């Protein structure tokens, strides 16, 4: 195999140390969410008081609701618009395709803060009051480019004659779209939706600049609260980490299991 000098322990030590570096802070944060005192360094016994406080705090619950609803709605809309746009792009003339893709890649290449102030200036130019709606619009807007980019490769693999054949056989364009094209590119659509959801749910920078009227998502709440040490943040973080980890493990393990099934069929 590739290797400078075969050593058994060096790789284990290096990779192990880095994984420890990645996970230890998160683990400590999670452990102290169960601490019986306000301290984040001295262990005073097990308690779930910070979780009780978390669920009682109206601010926190509102922020959770905002994050979840913005992520769900923006994922639905951006996946729908992005899918149609990607299909349209794959059938467009080369010039149109290139220009659209170039513009589309701007928010991906630009630093988040630049995209964020762009939205902020846009909403103020149209004198739209900043709040929940602007946050939702911004999330839809920054998600669509990623959805398009995750669907386009699947469309490239698609046989162009398939849609043609469906139309020849009497399908309406809409039927051809829903029954022939969409099922073929479904993996791309699903991964696009997943990217859109996690990006929206985790977003801080763009939400921070386009929100107003006291509307906060989880990230903005953490940002405003973190100046003082507050174990309810630890409790909230613990729940977030748990959800993300379970979701990622499922996403990664399920396809592996499916693959195994396929192999056994063969």
């Amino acid at each position, binding site marked *: 195999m590739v290797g400078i000098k075969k050593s058994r322990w060096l790789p284990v030590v290096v990779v192990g140390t880095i994984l420890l570096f990645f996970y230890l802070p998160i683990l400590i944060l999670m452990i102290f969410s169960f601490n019986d005192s306000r301290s984040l360094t001295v262990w005073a016994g097990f308690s779930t008081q910070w979780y009780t406080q978390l669920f009682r705090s109206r601010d926190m619950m509102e922020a959770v609701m905002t994050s979840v609803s913005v992520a769900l709605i923006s994922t639905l809309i951006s996946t729908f618009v992005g899918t149609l746009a990607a299909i349209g792009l794959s059938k467009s003339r080369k010039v*149109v395709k290139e220009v659209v893709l170039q513009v589309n890649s701007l928010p991906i290449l630009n630093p988040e803060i*630049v995209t964020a102030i762009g939205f902020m200036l846009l909403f103020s130019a149209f004198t739209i009051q900043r709040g929940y709606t602007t946050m939702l619009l911004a999330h839809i807007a920054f998600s669509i480019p990623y959805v398009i980019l995750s669907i386009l490769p699947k469309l490239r693999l698609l046989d162009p004659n398939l849609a043609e054949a469906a139309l020849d056989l009497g399908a309406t364009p809409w039927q051809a779209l829903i029954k022939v094209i969409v099922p073929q590119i479904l993996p791309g659509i699903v991964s696009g939706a997943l990217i859109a959801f996690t990006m929206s749910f985790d977003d801080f920078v763009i939400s921070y600049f386009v929100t107003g009227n006291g509307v906060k998502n989880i990230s903005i709440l953490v940002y405003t609260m973190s100046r003082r040490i507050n174990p309810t943040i630890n409790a909230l973080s613990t729940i977030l980490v748990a959800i993300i980890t379970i979701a990622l493990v499922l996403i990664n393990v399920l396809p592996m299991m499916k693959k195994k099934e396929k192999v056994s069929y063969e």
Partner: protein
Amino acid sequence: MRTFSNLVKPYIAWMSVFIVVPMLLIILYAFTTVGNEVLPFKFTLDNFIKFFDPVFLRVLGKSLQVALITTVISILIGYPVAYFIANVKENIQTLLILLVTIPMWINMLVRTYAWISILSDNGLINSFLSKIGLPTVTMMYTDFAVVLGMVYNFLPFMILSIYTVLAKLDKALIAASYDLGANRIQTFIKVVFPLSLPGVISGITLVFLPAVSTFVIPKFLGGGNYMLIGNLIETQFITVGEWNFGSAISLIMAMIIMISMVITKKFDKNVEENNSSGGGRLW
């Protein structure tokens, strides 16, 4: 197929409003100042001239310096890690890569917040130090804390992009190198490392760009007075309300990033050309 190509039209309209117009607005704000009632905008270069004050130039210098240090450290740590992961059995590779990926999906604010209780003056490290009778060290609100926070947040990108290239490396090339008499070190320096450079380069972009523009990490770990260019933009928009100056700074930052991307892309092309010609010679 005209019917289907029409599907892109609504998005072109959307894109113009949500991507093109915001960019134009930033440029407009950067080159103007608040005018009078008749003419709301007045063209000016003052916003840019203002930036060339030593105070602001120092902020820019500091941002570039911190981002550069973060990138170098990420390569020095990330390369060996990616290399080792690429050389274990395939199912362990999948597991290790999943373990590197999970932290990337955890909210960046949470990940950065986690370090506060470790680094602070009465935090975990310092209480441990005083317990074993050593003097305590101030770590919070220093360059060290900021760079640590950045490496912690962005290192996974470096590992993943180097790993992707190393994992796809044609093993026959390495076998050929051994057959032709090269030892392990020679093979690494002359074959493996040059072929992995595209991964290193995309890793550099993935680490350097967010490191230059972040304002959360310096705020959390550097404190309220720690100014990087991202913080400067945030202050202009959120605290001071100088949108024109803020837009000018954003434009300058976007330009710097654009230039560094062009440079890395050019470098990437050179690498690819060298590789393909090298491959030609090999046969």
